[in-house]
């Protein structure tokens, strides 16, 4: 049932296909079996060319749909390596499929790269499965229509596969990157000129309070930067926030413990912490072994950190960055020692555990917002503003897109796709 609705949704192309089916059925009513002479006309507009926007080793073949396209009829794709071929019938059959399949509208081409109308037939030959297409070698290709024992072969065409330098299908992705980059730079520029309002993030107000509490109790602060390495934005955000926390901790003369899972992150955080102590005017308090490595293995790291929590009893635990299943093992142990726990992560699958077991949790994007909020630097605040504009843009796309997609169904129209295709993940 579901599948039927899906098929019909596709619109015009399928309608014509339905019509073709009807005609085929009618034909077979009057004159069955369909005689080869009347049914199998030579195929129209056969074209073959190098598949655009790909890494080579592939050819695309197009031909017009025929009125008799139906499931009982089949198309064959024939491939020959020689360019001067006398007998197309001797070419190798590399694909065979029912004639009501492989239309242009089944392919993933967005409108800006679609080579022809949506109702034409389309087949892409690729390397593999018994086909070896060499780049820069010309091939002869023919399409045959087959009904029972009859076969009509269209005039062979030639094409040469080659690798391309640009994937035009992904230009929407590229444009979005430029657009968003522009927005971010614009917002940073605005932020440099005037103050931008930022709403309160409850978790962040707690940071100072938590560091203060550790100072009162004379216990250390434990700070974790997550499971990912330095190439992950959440780790970078965690490292930036570590800088702010370390600066406050230095000011309060509170000990900081930062156990690591990734050596490079450890090295970077070491530098950041050192700098923070310098900026706080307490370089002599900086301890070289505040940042230390345990192991890169998930659960032995967790066991060791749990051990630290139980033995050193830190008053405040920070969990920033990306986490996996170890999240709950860390936070529950931390809760049992009575520490204040502040988490911030973009790991959506672990958020439920942080939210339920920590005192404050920075949810998803709030982790990135945190460094802006703590520093109030124009660059950071501007970025945040840029992200907000980006989200507003996406909200608009969602609204307009849904209306257009619905209109497309009601009016049975294709024009909404000029908008919708831009926001599709075309590969």
């Amino acid at each position, binding site marked *: 049932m*579901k599948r039927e*609705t899906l098929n*019909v*949704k596709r619109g015009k192309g399928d309608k014509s296909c339905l019509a073709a089916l009807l005609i085929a059925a009618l034909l077979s009513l009057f004159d069955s079996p369909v005689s080869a002479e009347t049914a199998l006309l030579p195929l129209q507009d056969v074209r073959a060319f190098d598949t655009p926007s790909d890494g080579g080793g592939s050819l695309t073949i197009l031909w017009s749909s025929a009125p008799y396209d139906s499931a009982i009829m089949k198309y064959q794709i024939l491939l020959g390596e020689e360019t001067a071929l006398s007998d197309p019938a001797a070419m190798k059959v590399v694909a065979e499929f029912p004639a009501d399949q492989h239309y242009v509208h089944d392919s993933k081409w967005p409108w800006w790269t679609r080579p022809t109308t949506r109702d034409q037939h389309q087949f892409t030959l690729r390397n593999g499965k018994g086909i070896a297409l060499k780049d820069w070698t010309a091939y002869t290709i023919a399409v045959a229509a087959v009904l029972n024992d009859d076969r009509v072969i269209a005039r062979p065409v030639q094409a040469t596969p080659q690798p391309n330098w640009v994937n035009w299908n*992904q230009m*929407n*992705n*590229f444009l*979005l*990157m430029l657009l968003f980059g522009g927005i971010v730079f614009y917002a940073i520029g605005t932020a440099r000129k005037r103050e*931008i*309002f930022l*709403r309160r*993030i409850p978790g962040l107000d707690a940071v100072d309070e938590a560091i203060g509490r550790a100072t009162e109790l004379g216990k250390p602060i434990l700070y974790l930067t997550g499971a990912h*390495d*330095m*190439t992950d934005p959440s780790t*970078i955000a965690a490292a930036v926030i570590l800088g702010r926390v370390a600066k406050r901790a230095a000011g309060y003369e509170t000990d900081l413990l930062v156990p690591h899972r990734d050596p*490079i992150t450890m*090295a970077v955080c070491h530098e950041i912490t050192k700098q923070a102590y310098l900026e706080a005017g307490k370089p002599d308090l900086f301890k070289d072994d505040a940042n230390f490595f*345990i*192991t890169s*293995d998930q659960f*032995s790291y967790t*066991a060791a950190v*749990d*051990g630290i929590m*139980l033995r050193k009893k830190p008053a405040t635990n920070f969990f920033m960055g990306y986490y996996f299943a170890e999240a709950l093992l860390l936070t529950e142990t931390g809760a049992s020692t009575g520490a204040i726990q502040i988490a911030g992560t973009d790991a959506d699958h672990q*958020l*439920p*555990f942080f*939210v*339920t077991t920590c005192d404050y949790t920075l*949810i998803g*994007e*709030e982790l990135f917002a945190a460094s*802006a*909020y703590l520093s109030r630097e124009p660059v950071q605040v501007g970025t*945040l*503003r840029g*992200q*907000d504009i980006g*989200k*507003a843009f*996406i*909200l608009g*796309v*969602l609204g307009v897109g*849904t209306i257009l*997609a*619905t209109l*497309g*169904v*009601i009016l*049975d129209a294709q024009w909404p796709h000029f908008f*919708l295709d831009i*926001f*599709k*993940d075309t*590969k």
Partner: protein
Amino acid sequence: MPIESIIGGWVATGLTLFIFSFLYKDNPLFKVAENLYVGVSVGYTIVKTFDTVIVHLIWKPIVETGEWSLLIPVAIGTLMLTRYVPKAAWISRYAFAFIVGVGSGLAIPRTISSFILKQIEDTVRPILLLVPGEGVTFTWSLLDPTSSLNTIIILIGVSAVLFYFFFSVEHSGPGKVVARTGILFLMIAFGAAFGYTVMARMSLLIGRLTDLIEFSDPSYGMPTLWLLGLTILTLVVMSRRSSGKQTKEEE
């Protein structure tokens, strides 16, 4: 049964019980298991890194196929070790700069593709569907995630949660209602994900307990029972001792 399996059974059982003893409280047995675990895992990582990186990624390609370009990452890697020379430590920045640069570059288009465009594509659906025989209709089925009703619910959910993440807008007036809807959606999702995960976590425990039951078999020499006894005994002795200590301190 081969002797290494029997010894293995004893070791595995012991380590399992020692780790579990941490549920009662921190104790020497857990500390032994914890430190052994860290040691073994670091050793394991070193061996695996040596095998894959030094042997398979550097040595073999260079010696066997002459891929001398691999000396570049080796050089970058070595730069990182300048951190041990305080005066030259800044050179290690080149390595970080390269890693972070590559990572950021790779992230941008891929994130746009699979986390922005793909998510938009999945959310933007027609609200009315063309049902054969009935024409354009609004489908009410809750169980079909693509039904009209669910399309609207998903759209509301995505929009409300996205709005909650606006940082430069005060959540007041109508915005407050939307943001609160967003929070409600967030909480339902977190609760559901929590409840859903319980089963996977219980499966893990079942797996460990099944192993322990298996190792209580006489063919292994019943390590589970013996070692369980030992663990409990240690915990009892330890709590006796620490309570003795405490009374002394109090005096």
